[in-house]
């Protein structure tokens, strides 16, 4: 903290010292920059008397005068190397943006208006009689010192523009000769240019000091109002400005202004007046779109394009990017859609294949139940067949012995018929069960389905185990099921229960509990067999797990699949009371009443 404070303090001290040093250097000097429009040498001689007079008026100061071209003066101002500038009206207006402010305007003579001092003349050779108006110059060559020169070009530029010509696009064709301005005169004299632009009074001065012969050049379209009797081709603008730099102390400005205003006006010595109104100059520069009004040039479409080009380019680039992105996204969307569609189709196909294979599995499982029951089934069929055979043989024997009574014949025939029907019944029961078929669901009363399954079991097995049904179903006792599939589940559970009890030599009835639990119909098949170990229970529903030597191990896994495909659940647990297992499955209750089972 202290370190920072010390650093700040030392910084401030340094700044104060530096300022003091600079002030000390500048104290007493009045540094004046003068625009040398005729070149440094000419300017030196031109301004020497003025500087001497000013020095006399400012005894406590040392007047230092330096000559600059346009760019040099701007640079000197930027470097704070000047206290005052003396420059032409156009240049002054341009420099205003660097913070200078005029304190006086130069006069051409004491009596004249300071706002009507600077003008320009277009000179042509006397011999060019056809050149009378500005309009006549449209297709001629015109010389001027520089596009930056106020009296040397810009004033006439304004006039040409007012006459409907645009020198910048070659009406007339401009030639810039550079300073001094006499080179323009030379260009016109030598015929390199048809006309030349010069400051007002330059021609007159050259005529008077003999550097130019009389009757060789003339001023084109001279205006009546002329400052100091010089002929001009343009309107008049305020005189040169004496301006103070922004950093110049007001005291000094006041002293210099007083000195200027009290300078003795003499022959050839320009006097100084209070500052004139420079708005006409502003107006001119605005029309020409130069200096502070250069930005107006930028209103053309080309300049607009140039100005906004980075933005435009960025926008176009963004647009392009956006377009590319859109195309890319569209492409992606299409590809994804295609992929999605393909995936959906694949999934549908897979589902169909799974459904098919599931149906096949179910069919296999039903066949496997039949297979497991086959031994029994053969026995069941054997019995009626053997009985029938016995009756038939007996009848033959009795007939041979001649002891066949009508009563015996009747008894045997009745028995034969009944046994044949029994055999047919057994076969019918398994034929429907073994048939391959597609799934079809109907609303069924759960208890009916259980009773049918028990009936099916009974029709297959003459020694079918006894069943006890505990029907505790409530009002909601309907399920939407594929009857055959659920019967398959029930048969599996019944057969397992029966096998378990057979193995244990138990003759208990198999108990079937029917309950409604919330929205679920619950069927519990309880046996009194030896039960299963915990490990066996864990693997119970896995395919190919079996505790039976001849079992395929598909029964319960298929049962689980079937129950789950009906939106239900299949569970196994040890019976809560006594030995044995409880297999329980839930099916969601159906809201509509049961329909009659389809007759086959």
């Amino acid at each position, binding site marked *: 903290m202290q370190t920072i404070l010390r650093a700040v303090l030392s910084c401030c001290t340094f700044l104060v010292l530096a300022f003091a040093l600079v002030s000390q250097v500048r104290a007493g000097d009045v540094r004046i920059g003068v625009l040398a429009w005729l070149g440094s040498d000419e300017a030196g001689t031109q301004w020497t008397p003025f500087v001497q007079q000013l020095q006399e008026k400012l005894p406590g100061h040392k007047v230092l005068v330096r000559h600059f071209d346009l760019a040099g003066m701007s640079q000197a101002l930027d470097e704070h190397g000047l206290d005052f500038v003396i420059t032409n009206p156009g240049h002054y207006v341009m420099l205003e943006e660097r913070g200078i402010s005029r304190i006086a305007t130069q006069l051409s003579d004491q009596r004249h208006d300071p706002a009507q001092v600077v003008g320009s003349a277009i000179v042509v050779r006397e011999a060019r009689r056809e050149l009378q108006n500005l309009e006549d110059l449209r297709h001629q060559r015109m010389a001027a010192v520089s596009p930056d020169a106020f009296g040397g070009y810009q004033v006439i530029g304004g006039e040409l523009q007012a006459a409907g010509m645009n020198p910048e696009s070659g009406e007339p064709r401009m030639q810039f000769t550079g300073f001094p301005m006499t080179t323009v005169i030379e260009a016109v004299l030598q015929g390199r240019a048809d006309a030349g632009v010069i400051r007002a009074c330059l021609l007159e001065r050259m005529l008077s000091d003999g550097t130019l012969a009389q009757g060789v050049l003339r001023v084109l379209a001279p205006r009546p109002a002329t400052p100091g009797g010089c002929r001009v081709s343009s309107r008049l603008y305020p005189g040169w400005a004496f301006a103070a730099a922004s950093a110049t102390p007001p005291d000094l400005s006041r002293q210099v202004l007083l000195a200027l205003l009290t300078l003795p006006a003499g022959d050839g010595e320009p006097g100084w007046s209070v500052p004139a109104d420079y708005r006409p100059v502003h107006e001119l520069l605005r029309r020409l779109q130069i200096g502070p009004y250069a930005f107006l040039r930028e209103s053309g479409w080309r300049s607009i394009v140039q100005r906004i080009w980075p933005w435009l380019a960025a926008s176009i680039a963004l647009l392009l990017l956006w377009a590319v992105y859109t195309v890319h996204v569209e492409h992606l969307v299409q590809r994804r859609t295609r992929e999605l569609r393909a995936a959906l189709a694949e999934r549908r196909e897979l589902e169909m294949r799974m459904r098919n294979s599931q149906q096949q599995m179910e069919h296999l499982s039903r066949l496997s139940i039949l297979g497991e029951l086959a031994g029994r089934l053969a026995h069941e069929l054997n019995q009626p067949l053997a009985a029938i055979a016995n009756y038939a043989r007996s009848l033959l024997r009795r007939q041979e*012995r001649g002891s066949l009574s009508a009563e015996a014949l009747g008894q045997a025939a009745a028995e034969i018929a009944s046994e044949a029907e029994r055999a047919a019944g057994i076969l019918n029961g398994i034929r429907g069960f073994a048939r391959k078929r597609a799934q079809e669901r109907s609303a069924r009363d759960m208890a009916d389905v259980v009773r049918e399954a028990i009936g099916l079991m009974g029709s297959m097995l003459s020694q079918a185990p006894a069943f006890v049904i505990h029907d505790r179903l409530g009002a909601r006792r309907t399920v939407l099921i594929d009857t055959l599939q659920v019967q398959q589940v029930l048969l599996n559970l019944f057969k397992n229960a029966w096998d378990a009890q057979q193995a244990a030599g138990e003759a208990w009835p198999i108990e079937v509990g029917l309950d409604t639990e919330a929205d679920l119909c619950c069927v519990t098949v309880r046996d009194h067999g030896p039960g299963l170990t915990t490990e066996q229970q864990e693997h119970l529903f896995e395919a190919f797990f079996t505790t039976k030597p001849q079992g395929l191990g598909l029964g319960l896994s298929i049962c689980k699949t079937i129950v789950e495909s009906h939106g239900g659940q299949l569970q196994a647990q040890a019976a809560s009371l006594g030995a044995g297992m409880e297999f329980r499955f839930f099916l969601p209750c159906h809201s509509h009443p049961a329909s009659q089972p389809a007759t086959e």
Partner: protein
Amino acid sequence: MTIDVSISVVHVVDDEAPFRRSLLFLLESSGWQCVGHASAEDFLLAAPAFPSGGGCIVLDVRMLRISGLELQRRLQEAGSAYPVIFMTGHGDVDLAVQAMKDGAIDFLQKPFREQHFLDTVERAVRLSLERHNASLRSQCAQQTLDQLSARELEVARWLALGLSNKEVGRELAISENTVHVHRQHIMDKTGAGGAADFARLILRANPSGLD
């Protein structure tokens, strides 16, 4: 030995009612007296006496509660003279082997040819008669031997084995004369004519009596 079917009885034990009835019908058509039983328990409850004309039991192997094999075992324990013919709906080799070991006459697989069945029944009944007669003879011989004193029986056994009076006397540390007196008593009590008759009598009473 001829069989009088009218005084022999064939018992059919099968819990499968239609089949049981068909067997009874078949047996009746051959003239057999026959009785059906719905379960092993029914048969044990009825406990029919062995008929004078012989008989047999036709037994289903698989029945609830008491199986056919179990019934066979119980009958053997009780010394029943009934031969057993087994029937089964299954080709169960293990059961068949066990049943035959336990003395079953035959093991028939349903459906069987009726002639074979009837022949087997006849064979069984004949066997039952033979066994019954043998049993009667044995009882008779035993009664005869029971009349002898312990010493006389001992002497009879040695004589039956072909020893002379002298040799028997040495074996039993008695005089030859004493053996001779015993021999006389034995012959008086049993009516036997000699050593060969002694042997026949002893073996009839007990096939392993001379071991």
